[in-house]
């Protein structure tokens, strides 16, 4: 009797400790072999504002591994999804400015989300130091087989209102689609879904006519001929979809892309920022990392933090102007 009690207590304790170690961020590797001066001192947390498995999460994990190889110590990725990444951002902004909390963040949170949410919910880039650019993730406008669209010009022939699925409110996918239809003067209705997979499902099942998705989400079904790509939204064509024209090429002044960059809390010492940037650049050189980018259809955007900042400011202004010009309200798909 006594004995059996201990057995199951031990079993429970075992499970509990598994959970503790597994959830990460607990293990301390203080003073762990670092070869670039003092950084890092102990474990460095990397909150990511998305759930496990999405591209933001995978990129963070890839960078985390690279940093850990270059600098020693551990860089556990912690998923803090919610509010388009604002939760994770708030955590980083509040964290101590010593490099113990760093985060790869999305441009959309700073440049696009402000167009959809109330002013007091806007996350400002001024709370962070931008250390290093990472990569670009392009959007593609795709049509379902049933819709019969093969190019943007076909929209003119549509009898009814065209429906388009988006990956959520305040995302680049929504902005890209909304701008396309407005600039092209097409009558269209946005149907927001919770992320790319449900939007793709609806498109495959002909529930919506078109959708804006990230290239990585759509590419396999494009290649299998199940959906038809109409346009990409980057400054130039996407390496992975060489036959798909950009919106600019088709005469539409629409350029939207998602890009990610490394941020640290405002006021983090310059030498820490430099150490991170150097370690990231070394990671970018690795074959494994480059293969990862290819596999996930990511275009490298390995520019300096200052360049990222300039790009963000410019995009933010451009999006705001376009949205105002065409009277688009991203938060109004009621």
């Amino acid at each position: 009797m006594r004995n059996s009690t201990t057995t199951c207590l031990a079993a429970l304790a075992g499970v509990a400790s598994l959970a503790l170690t597994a959830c990460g961020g607990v293990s301390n590797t203080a003073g762990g072999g670092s070869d670039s001066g003092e950084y890092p001192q102990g474990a460095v947390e990397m909150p990511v504002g998305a759930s496990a498995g999405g591209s933001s999460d995978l990129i963070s994990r890839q960078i985390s591994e690279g940093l850990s190889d270059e600098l020693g110590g551990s860089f556990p990725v912690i998923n803090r999804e919610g509010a388009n990444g604002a939760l994770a951002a708030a955590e980083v902004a509040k964290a101590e400015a010593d490099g113990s909390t760093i985060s790869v963040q999305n441009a959309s949170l700073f440049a696009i989300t402000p167009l959809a949410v109330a002013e007091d919910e806007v996350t400002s880039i001024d709370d962070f130091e931008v250390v290093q650019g990472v990569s670009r993730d392009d959007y593609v406008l795709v049509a379902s087989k049933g819709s019969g669209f093969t190019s943007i010009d076909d929209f003119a022939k549509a009898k009814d209102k065209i429906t388009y699925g988006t990956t959520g409110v305040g995302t680049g996918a929504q902005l890209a689609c909304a701008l396309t239809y407005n600039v092209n003067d097409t009558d269209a209705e946005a149907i927001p879904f919770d992320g790319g997979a449900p939007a793709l499902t609806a498109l495959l099942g002909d529930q919506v006519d078109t959708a804006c998705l990230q290239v990585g989400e759509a590419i396999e079904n494009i290649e299998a001929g199940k959906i038809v790509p109409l346009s990409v939204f980057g400054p130039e064509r996407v390496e992975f979809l060489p036959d798909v024209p950009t919106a600019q090429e088709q005469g539409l002044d629409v350029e939207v892309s998602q890009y990610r960059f490394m941020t640290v809390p405002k006021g983090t010492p310059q030498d820490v920022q430099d150490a991170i940037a150097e370690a990231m650049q070394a990671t970018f050189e690795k074959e494994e990392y480059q293969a990862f980018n290819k596999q996930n259809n990511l275009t490298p955007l390995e520019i300096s933090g200052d360049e990222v900042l300039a790009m963000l400011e410019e995009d933010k202004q451009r999006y705001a102007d376009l949205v105002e010009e065409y009277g688009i309200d991203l938060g109004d798909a009621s």
Partner: protein
Amino acid sequence: MDWNAFLDGFAVVTEPTNLLYCLIGVLIGMLIGVLPGLGPAATMAILLPIAYNAGDPVSAIIMLAGIYYGAQYGGTITSVLLRIPGEASSVVTVFDGFALAKQGKAGTALGVAAIGSFFGATVSIIGLTLLGPIVASYALDFGPPEYAALALLGVLLVATVGNGHTVKALVAAAVGLLLATVGSDTFTSANRFTFDSLELQGGIDFVVVAMGLFGVGEILYNLEERHGKIHVPAAIANIWPSRKDLKQASPAIGRGSVIGFFLGVLPGGGAVMASLAAYAAEKRVAKDPSRFGRGAIEGVAGPESANNAAATSSFIPLLTIGIPANASMAMLFAALLVVGVTPGPQLIDENPELFWGVINSMYIGNLILLVLSIPLVGIFVKILRVRPAILAPITALITILGVYTIRNSVFDIFLMIGFGILGYLMKKTGFEPGPLVLAFVLGSLMESSFRRSMLLFDGDATGFVTRPISGTILAFLLLVLLLPLLKRLLRRRVTETTTPDHHDHDDHDERAELR
């Protein structure tokens, strides 16, 4: 179907390394399944680096898949023994599972659940092997209107769960629907009931609600109940279900497996709907529905078979059209990307070895799980012998840890404790937490699907009736609603025209009161 590729798949699985990976996967899965909160998706995320380093990508995928379906077995254990459902799809197991455990029949419940899980999963793998692509295309016919109708049906079925008053169940369900609206609205990004809290913007997680209402609520209630009483350990008479139990459970296992297979293919609410529908079906076909909620073995067998079948058939959209049906499937998607394979319609032709290797590993993995479960049932039921003074803090610890691991948020822990107090008050006043939790899960599905449908229909609600599938679901829903009324009406007429004696009249009066 390509039989050669299928058989080659078995050759892949039976390689010793792959067998070992499969065993490790299901073992880890089962363990993390026991701990609610740290779900299979999070575990797979942590173990994803193995996919980079494994010599053979197939081994890594086999292991990660094993974690997922292994967790389905483990999840039952806490539902039955401690009344904490780790996943939405095991909420319905709690009602009869925990009731059975209290009667000292935890072994029966766990045994039947293990057998049901094995059977459900196996039926589903056979379905996946033979019908995968066909079923996948039927899942695509489910658009927003169909989901809205299905979720509405689900909310209706919620009222039949448990054995409390229908009115109280509906009240609890309404509260659940209300809670589902908390957070940033996904259509307009307007904040609803967030009270300016950034933490609430992302909405409330299911695990927070479920563990609070069930787990913590039960602990608090027991503290009061047992205060001053001497603890009498529940007699554990039988470790293994008797022949009679199995006979009683087997039709339920069969029905649950089929329901689970078909509903599980639907991304989103598939698994929850499956377990709920299986429970409702059992209650409907039972000779004596009043046993449900008080320890009916079918109430465990049906939903457990269904949720395992659903877990397995959720592989179908991923492997045949490249759509992850849930968070764990999204992780598997990521893992496949890591090993250089993009899941999609071309997977079966481009990587038959991987496709069939993974599917066939599930036949073997489930067999391992069944064999593992048998001795483990014997060990786990002994948990019930632990004094509440020791068990309660451990349960509390598990729930707190579990909740923390979802979003690494301390706020969620306090929120869960809040729900625990609510759960305690509900139990004191005779409200069941089940309908609240299930309505909470279905609420956001129902709301967003309904709004999406209205956007698609351009505001014209007749579309719900004119589309074949949603129309059929709504007709079925009407039938379920009206059937009891019709039956009553018919019975009354029959008794009135034949022999209306006093006894019968009493009966009617009683029934009228109940209504």
